[in-house]
C-alpha cells in the first residue's frame, strides 16, 4: 500500500481554555475525496486550518506524504486552499490570480503562461483570463479559486466550505463538477461542509465531526445506513430514534425491548444496556411484506408532498411517540387517517453511543 496522503496523529487544539479538537487520529488515502462534515463549532474548520498550516496544533503531529509538517509554514506546505470567501486578489486579473502560486514558486514565465491557460481551460473559463475579479459571478469566482489552488499541483487540496455562498441549484452543479475534476486530476481533496447531502454527493469518505471529536468515518453509504452513533444517525438526514434496552443477548443475536415493542436483531451489546435503534423514515412501511415486523397502528398527524414522496408524521396509538415516515408518491394521505406500520429489523441500526 502506498503512503497515506495525510495523517493526523493525536491532534488536540485548545484556544485559551476552550477545547476545539481532542484526540484526532485520521489517515487519508492518496487520491481520495474526503469530506469533513459536522455542525458549525464541531472542529472541522480548525482541523482544516491545522492541515493548511494556518494554526499550530496544541498537541500531536501532522504528516503529509509521510513528512512531518506540524511546524511547517503554509507557504512551504504541499497544500493549497480554496477559501470560503475565495480570497481572490481584487487588484489582479484572473490570469494573474491563477499564476500567483507559480510566480511565488519561481516557475519560468512561459511555463507560467502555459499552466495558467491549462488550469483556466480545466474549469471552463479560459476566455476570462484578462478580466477582473469583480466582473465574475459567484460560481465563476469559485472556479477561479479552484484553478488557482490546483495549478501549483498540490499534494492535498483543501476546500473550506467553498460552495456555501452559492444558491442551491448552482451548488448541486458545482458538486458534480468538483467530483469530476477531482477524478481527473487525482489530487487528494479534503472538503469541509455542514451540508450532509453535499457530503454524500461528493465524498469517497465522510468524516463526521462533533464537539471536537471524530464521531464516525466511512463511505457515504456506510455512514448513512450504518451510523455508529446517535449523533451521526441524527445528523445524516431524517431519522427515528427509538430508545430501549437489551433484554437478551446471545452472541450476535440480541433482543431489544423498546416502547414500540420488542425486536430481535443482529448486533453486539451487553444485556441490560441502554441503547437506541435508528430507523430511517423510508424504512417504515404501511404494509407487511418479507421479514417486516409489526410496529403498531398510528394516526397521521401531518403530511407534506416532497415530489418524490410524501413525508408524514404519525402518532402511534396508545403512546406519545410520533414517527416520521415516507409514503409513495401516488399514495394520497390525509391527516387523521389510520395506518398500520411495519419495519424490517434488518433495517434497524443498533446504537450504543
Amino acid at each position, binding site marked *: 500500500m502506498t503512503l497515506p496522503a495525510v495523517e493526523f496523529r493525536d491532534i488536540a487544539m485548545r484556544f485559551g481554555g476552550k477545547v476545539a479538537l481532542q484526540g484526532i487520529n485520521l489517515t487519508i488515502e492518496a487520491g481520495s475525496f474526503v469530506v469533513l462534515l459536522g455542525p458549525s463549532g464541531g472542529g472541522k474548520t480548525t482541523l482544516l*486550518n491545522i492541515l493548511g498550516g*494556518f*494554526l*499550530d496544533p496544541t498537541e500531536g503531529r501532522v504528516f503529509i506524504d509521510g513528512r512531518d509538517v506540524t511546524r511547517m*509554514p503554509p507557504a512551504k506546505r504541499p497544500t493549497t486552499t480554496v477559501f470560503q470567501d475565495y480570497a481572490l486578489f481584487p487588484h489582479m486579473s484572473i490570469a494573474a490570480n491563477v499564476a500567483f502560486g507559480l510566480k511565488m514558486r519561481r516557475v519560468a514565465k512561459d511555463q507560467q503562461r502555459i499552466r495558467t491557460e491549462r488550469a483556466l481551460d480545466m474549469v471552463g473559463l479560459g476566455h476570462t483570463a484578462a478580466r477582473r475579479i469583480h466582473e465574475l459571478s459567484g460560481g465563476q469566482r469559485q472556479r477561479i479559486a479552484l484553478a488557482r489552488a490546483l495549478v501549483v499541483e498540490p499534494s492535498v487540496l483543501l476546500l473550506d466550505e467553498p460552495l456555501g455562498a452559492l444558491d442551491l441549484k448552482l451548488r448541486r452543479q458545482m458538486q458534480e463538477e468538483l467530483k469530476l475534476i477531482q477524478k481527473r486530476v487525482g489530487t487528494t481533496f479534503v472538503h469541509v461542509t455542514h451540508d450532509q447531502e453535499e457530503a454524500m454527493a461528493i465524498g469517497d469518505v465522510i468524516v463526521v465531526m462533533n464537539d471536537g471529536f471524530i464521531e464516525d468515518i466511512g463511505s457515504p453509504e456506510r455512514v448513512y445506513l450504518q451510523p455508529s452513533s446517535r449523533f451521526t444517525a441524527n445528523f445524516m438526514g431524517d431519522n427515528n430514534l427509538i430508545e430501549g434496552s437489551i433484554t437478551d443477548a446471545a452472541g450476535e443475536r440480541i433482543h431489544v425491548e423498546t416502547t414500540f415493542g420488542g425486536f430481535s436483531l443482529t448486533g453486539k451489546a451487553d444485556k441490560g444496556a441502554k441503547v437506541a435503534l435508528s430507523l430511517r423514515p423510508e424504512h417504515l412501511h404501511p404494509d407487511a411484506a418479507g421479514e417486516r415486523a409489526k410496529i403498531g397502528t398510528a394516526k397521521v398527524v401531518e403530511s407534506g408532498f416532497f415530489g418524490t414522496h410524501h413525508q408524514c408524521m404519525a402518532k402511534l396509538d396508545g403512546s406519545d411517540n410520533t414517527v416520521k415516515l415516507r409514503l409513495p408518491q401516488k399514495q394520497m394521505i390525509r391527516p387523521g387517517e389510520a395506518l398500520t406500520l411495519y419495519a424490517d429489523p434488518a433495517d434497524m441500526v443498533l446504537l450504543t453511543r
Partner: protein
Amino acid sequence: MIHRALPALRAAPVWIYVILIYGFIFLPVGVLVLFSFQGSRVPVPPFNGPSLQWYEAVFTDERMMDALTNSVIVALASSLVSVVLGFLAAYALARHRLPFARVLQGFLTAPLTVSYLIIAMGLLITFNQLGVPKSLLTVGIGHVVINLPLCFAIVYSQMGAHQANIERAARDLGAREWQVLALVTVPMMWPALFAGFFLSVTFSWDEFIIAFMVSRFEVTLPVEIWSMLRTGLNPKTNAVGSFVFLISVATVLLLDFVVFRRKKT
C-alpha cells in the same frame, strides 16, 4: 496566531519605532500642556511651576471669554443648520429617484474638495461686493458651507435599503410623509445625525481662516488666539490652547461614546 504578520518586524525594532513616533506625536502637545502651568513669564525650560496663574489670566480676560462665547454660538448654530439641511438633502436623494442624482450629489459635496482659504476668499469678496457687514453671522454662514457637505455625506452613506424598507412599512401602516420622517427616519438615523452634528461642532470650533477673513469686531476663539501669537511665546497661549484641547477631546470622546454604544446595541 491565525495570520502571521511579517516576522521581519521583530519585537524590539517595532516597539522602538512605536515609542519614537508616539513621542513625536505627543511631544508638542505635552510641552504645550506642561508649560501652561509655568511659573515664570516664558514657556521654555526650565520649568518652574506648577502654577495656575495663566489659566486665571485666561479666564479673567474678557476679550478671551467673549471669543469663547462667540465660538460656542457659531459652532452650535452652524452645526444645527448644517445637519438639518444635510439630512433633508440626503433623505431626498436617497429615497427618491431624481434625475441627475449623481451630479446633485457631487454638487453638494463639492465644497469638501476646495481649500478653506479659497472658500473664505470667495465669501469675503462676495460680502464686500454686496455690502454685507462682516460679523458672527457671516462666519456662521461660512461654517455651514464647509459642514453641510460633511453632514450630507455622513447621513447619505448611512441611508441604506434596510431603512427604506422600514419607512415603507410605516407608510403601509398609514403614516403620512411627515410622520414617517419624524417618527421613523429621524430616530433611525440618530447616530448619523449625532455624528454629523458633533463633527461639525469640532470643525467649526477649530476653524480659523474663514472666521479670520469674514469677521471684524466679534471674533471666534481661534482668531483671538491668533492675535495673541503676535506677543510671541507666552504661557497664557499655552493655557488657552490646553483648554481648547480639553474641550475638543471631551467632545470627540462624547461623540465616540454615544455613537459607538448605539452601534453595539
